[in-house]
């Protein structure tokens, strides 16, 4: 009863009566609180699951790739139909003419400094990337060669983490780390020497320092930056700068900023995988849609229970009016009841919803790769902003649902209902 003294004097009668109604409402109160709670639980569960899946998919896709790749601008092939300006003069020689170009970033030290200063950038790693062949006596196998500082490379596309034999950090210039599939194809193991020939034509004999297994892609070979530069005859240059950002979905802005600062092309991962990003967005949109529908459904349930409640209380409403209660006071009583139901439902829904999400986050998958921390069976994310958002949305929709019956109560005519 002391809590009531916090309520302004003008609202105390209404607050007290609303609380009494709720406390003596029994099953009806529980039913409406349950409807609100159910709505909140659905939203919390759904958003946790959707954003959990989104998080896992994004992580799987992006943890092993650079978020932004900076390289020398290359002419994109343009369909002839889009070259309207050229008209009759157009010829197919356009791409060929532009093809021989500078492909190296000679001033990479400067570019790396500039990129590192861009907000949201975590790492900017100068590297050499290109195609080549690996062989040991027999047939050559195609490889993607990456030459970069091992410690920093681990931050961009982890190699050490996925090693199943040998080492990567501390790689010497005559050493290479290759993936498990490639090692299997060539029947080699740590310590063996293989030949790597780059697309530039240079060949190096390298000894295998480590073998990794990433579970995706095949034919990777990691060497030091210096070895990479000599394989591709780049001298002191690099041909890519690999960037990792802190905010994954802010990588487009980083790419745009970099392009405005240096005369190179910067491609963000989300532009490399537009269909992936749009499917994530469709997923999120459907989660919002289902949340909205469940709120609407629970609002209808609440409104109908409250309408019955108001009808049951119609005699009382008549009495209250006959002893001087105004329309606005009656409106307040039933709106406050809606608010009480909303808060009770939102809080209990949030607690139960969070608990459910927590419980389903516990079971783990059987791990596919030995030595790895197993993933959650159900990828879920407990996101405080969505829990509070769900509570807020439920409170607003419940109060709106309560307004209709409350208005009806306020408009009741005492002699009609007491007759």
């Amino acid at each position, binding site marked *: 009863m002391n809590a009531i003294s916090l309520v302004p004097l*003008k609202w105390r009668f209404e607050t007290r009566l609303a609380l009494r109604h709720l406390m003596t409402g029994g099953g009806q109160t529980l039913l409406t609180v349950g409807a609100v709670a159910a709505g909140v639980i659905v939203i919390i569960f759904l958003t946790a699951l959707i954003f959990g899946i989104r998080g896992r998919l994004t992580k799987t896709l992006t943890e092993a790739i650079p978020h932004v790749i900076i390289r020398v601008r290359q002419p994109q092939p343009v369909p002839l139909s889009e070259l309207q300006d050229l008209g009759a003069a157009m010829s197919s020689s356009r791409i060929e003419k532009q093809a021989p170009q500078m492909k190296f970033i000679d001033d990479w030290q400067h570019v790396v400094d500039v990129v590192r200063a861009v907000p949201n950038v975590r790492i900017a790693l100068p590297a050499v990337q290109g195609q080549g062949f690996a062989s040991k006596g027999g047939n050559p196998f195609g490889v993607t060669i990456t030459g970069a500082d091992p410690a920093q490379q681990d931050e961009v596309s982890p190699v050490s983490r996925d090693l199943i034999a040998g080492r990567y950090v501390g790689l010497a210039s005559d050493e290479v780390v290759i993936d498990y599939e490639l090692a299997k194809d060539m029947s080699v193991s740590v310590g063996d020497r293989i030949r790597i020939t780059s697309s530039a034509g240079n060949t190096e004999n390298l000894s295998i320092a480590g073998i990794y297994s990433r579970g995706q892609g095949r034919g990777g070979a990691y060497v030091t930056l210096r070895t990479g530069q000599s394989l591709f005859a780049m001298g002191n240059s690099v041909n890519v700068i690999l960037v990792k950002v802190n905010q994954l979905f802010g990588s487009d802005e980083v790419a745009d900023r970099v392009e405005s600062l240096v005369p190179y092309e910067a491609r963000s991962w989300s532009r490399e995988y537009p269909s992936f990003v749009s499917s994530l967005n469709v997923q999120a949109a459907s989660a919002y849609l289902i949340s909205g529908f469940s709120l609407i459904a629970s609002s209808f349930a609440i409104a109908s229970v409250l309408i019955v409640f108001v009808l049951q209380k119609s005699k009382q409403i008549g009495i209250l009016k006959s002893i*001087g209660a105004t329309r606005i006071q009656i409106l307040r009583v039933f709106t406050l009841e809606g608010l009480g139901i909303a808060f009770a439902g939102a809080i209990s829904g949030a607690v139960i919803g969070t608990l459910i999400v927590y419980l389903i986050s516990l079971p783990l998958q059987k791990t596919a790769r030995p030595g790895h921390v197993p993933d959650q069976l159900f990828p879920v994310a407990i996101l405080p902003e969505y829990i509070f958002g769900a509570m807020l949305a439920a409170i607003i929709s419940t109060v709106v649902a309560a307004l209709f019956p409350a208005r009806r109560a306020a408009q009741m005519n005492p002699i009609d209902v007491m007759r």
Partner: protein
Amino acid sequence: MGATTTTDDTRPIVVATDGLKKTYFGKIETPVLHGIDMEVRAGEFVAIIGQSGSGKSTLLNILGALDVPSEGRVLIDGVDIATLSEEGLAALRNRVVGFVFQFHYLLDELSCLENVLTPITISKGEASEEEIARVIGLLKRVGLESQLHKHPDTMSGGQNQRCAIIRALANQPKIVLADEPTGNLDSRSGNEVFNIMREMNRENGVAFIMVTHDDRLAQEADRILMIEDGWVHEVDKGEHRTKLLSSLEKGSAQRPGPN
């Protein structure tokens, strides 16, 4: 027709009607009151009698600003209630007029004391210590001191009706309108409740207008108004008593007279 107050009375008029008409417009037009002129002075106890459907309750509802007349004026404590806003009418019902109904119409969710304090909390949010003490005094006066914290469903019909009477008096109104307050009680409880109203009327100077079917109780009022076919006329108490006694002798009265 039927204007009815003694002219030598100097007490202020608290209720007055002037050509009051009421017609219900449903599927068919039903005229209920044809032109009521009446006055009630401060501290009077007036009984309104009449057949079922004669318009007694309609009149009472109009006097209490729960219903609006089709024609004519109602002055409560000198104010034409047709001039009042929604808030003004609510304030009138809250502070000037008190209601007692055939059914106690207490709120089940509230205790006897809380019910009695409702008119005060409606207008002020919270009752003061003095108001609570005064109201408890009244409840003691009607023998409810042991029922203060009981809820209506655990109290007897007579106790509930006494509680309802004190609720009607809680905001110290000038008029209490009682619509068959004993109609739902056995005769013993009915007598008790009536006596309490009479005492409250005498002790606090509150005017009572009581609609009743009970001629015996009507006899105890200061004045008797009879509504017949939508018209009101004052009944001479002596004449009424004679009529009552004669009907008693014929054995047609349902209940023996008081005392």
